[in-house]
């Protein structure tokens, strides 16, 4: 299997560990990711809050490169980028005026027949799901995990076409294939405050606090995530949240790809586990000892 790969800006900074662990597990699964040549930012929230045309043109400009490289499928691991790509394609199909304008901005074909995948959509289906369970060797059975999907993978469903929007299960399926017990909980798709991290931190603190509280109340040992923004808010802000609300969590926030990698027996250097501000090492040691 071979896909074009759009890492997204955070893959070089706040979410290096997501990029590294995704590449590592893909190579174990025999999935080849070919990075888009000279890709650029999808524009994220600032673009769609300032100009609809810009918000469409940035993702479609990247898809034009995918097309040139001869690919029909692209993997986009950041939930926010994924949502921008899916929205641009959706708007293109539904707004003739936009199609005309984009045609004048982007040279050549921007490829509306390109399919945009989040890695969970590939991993949670056969044949990958079966392969994942056959590669799982490190016993993580004792680890109780809640899967946090956040906003933009699932919503709005007619755009993202991802799983079931109010109660998704694809990440749970992947982690269960590794033998991890995933728990039911109420905050799977609640908002973490997303892009307010640098402006209205108070909102991030409140919303992320609700999520951490929800995870704690069902007895989770860790939260699995699929988005760099969610990770930053829940991991790097956790200490501040604990101080603000007088709480004590120390809940490791792990990318689902890191859990896959641990289970496949990859080293913590390969998965960059030491990058998290809330260290997962102690919890992982405990679980291994009990296994």
């Amino acid at each position: 299997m071979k896909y074009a790969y759009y890492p997204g800006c955070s893959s070089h900074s706040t979410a290096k560990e997501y990029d590294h662990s995704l590449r590592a597990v893909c190579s174990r699964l025999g999935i080849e990711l070919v990075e888009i040549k000279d890709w650029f930012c999808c524009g994220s929230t600032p673009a769609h809050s300032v100009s609809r045309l810009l918000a469409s043109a940035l993702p479609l400009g990247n898809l034009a490169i995918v097309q040139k490289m001869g690919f029909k499928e692209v993997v986009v691991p950041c939930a926010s980028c994924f949502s921008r790509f899916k929205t641009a394609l959706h708007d293109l199909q539904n707004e003739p005026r936009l199609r005309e304008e984009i045609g004048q901005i982007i040279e050549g074909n921007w490829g509306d027949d390109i399919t945009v995948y989040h890695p969970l959509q590939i991993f949670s289906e056969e044949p990958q799901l079966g392969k994942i369970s056959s590669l799982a060797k490190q016993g993580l059975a004792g680890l109780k995990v809640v899967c946090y999907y956040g906003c933009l993978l699932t919503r709005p469903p007619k755009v993202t076409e991802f799983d079931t929007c109010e109660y998704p299960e694809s990440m749970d399926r992947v982690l269960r294939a590794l033998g991890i017990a995933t728990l039911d909980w109420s905050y799977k798709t609640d908002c973490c405050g997303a892009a307010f991290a640098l402006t209205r931190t108070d909102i991030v603190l409140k919303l992320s606090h609700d999520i951490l509280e929800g995870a704690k109340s069902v007895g989770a040992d860790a939260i699995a995530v699929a988005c760099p923004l969610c990770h930053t808010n829940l991991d790097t802000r956790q200490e501040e949240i604990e101080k603000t609300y007088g709480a004590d969590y120390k809940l490791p926030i792990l990318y689902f790809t890191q859990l896959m990698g641990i289970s496949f027996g990859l080293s913590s250097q390969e998965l960059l586990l030491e990058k998290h501000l809330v260290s997962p090492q102690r919890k992982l040691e405990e679980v291994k000892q009990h296994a």
Partner: protein
Amino acid sequence: MVKVAPRFSEFAEAVKTISGLDVNLCFQCAKCASGCPVSYAMDYTPTQLIHAIQLGLTDLVMNSKTMWLCASCQTCSTRCPQDVDLAGVMDAVRIIAQRKKIKAKIPEVPIFYRSSLRNIALFGRMYELGLIATLKLLTRSFTKDMGLGLRMLRKGKLNIFPSFKGALAARRIFSQVKAREKR
């Protein structure tokens, strides 16, 4: 979908021109406000804001905090029984306010948009440290998050230097969009 008698408000028309969305489909059921994670911090709930747009209360809408505090989480758009893409309406309201150069009730939010876009237009990919520095200058919040920023730097979560890969193509798109929107 329930048909609602058409009303005319210039503001609703402006929203439609930008986004193609029809606010008059809203029948004020308040489902959007009940599911909105940020409505607790807004001065008008999303339901009230869309009503004000229907009525053409331009000043009230332009001076509200609501659109700046909207996190674009898409809950309202997903759940609306009338299929109103309210997150899209919020985008349109923000765009109108910025075009009219309205003094925003939550000024740091549009400053964040502008600084981010300038950053992308320059580097092609987001250069976080540059963005943080610009934001600190523009919002005069020098000490905020200093400790956290340093910890992230030590963890190698923020790059000291920007990348310029993809900058040319991105810059072309920015200038083309700007040229079209001027007309």
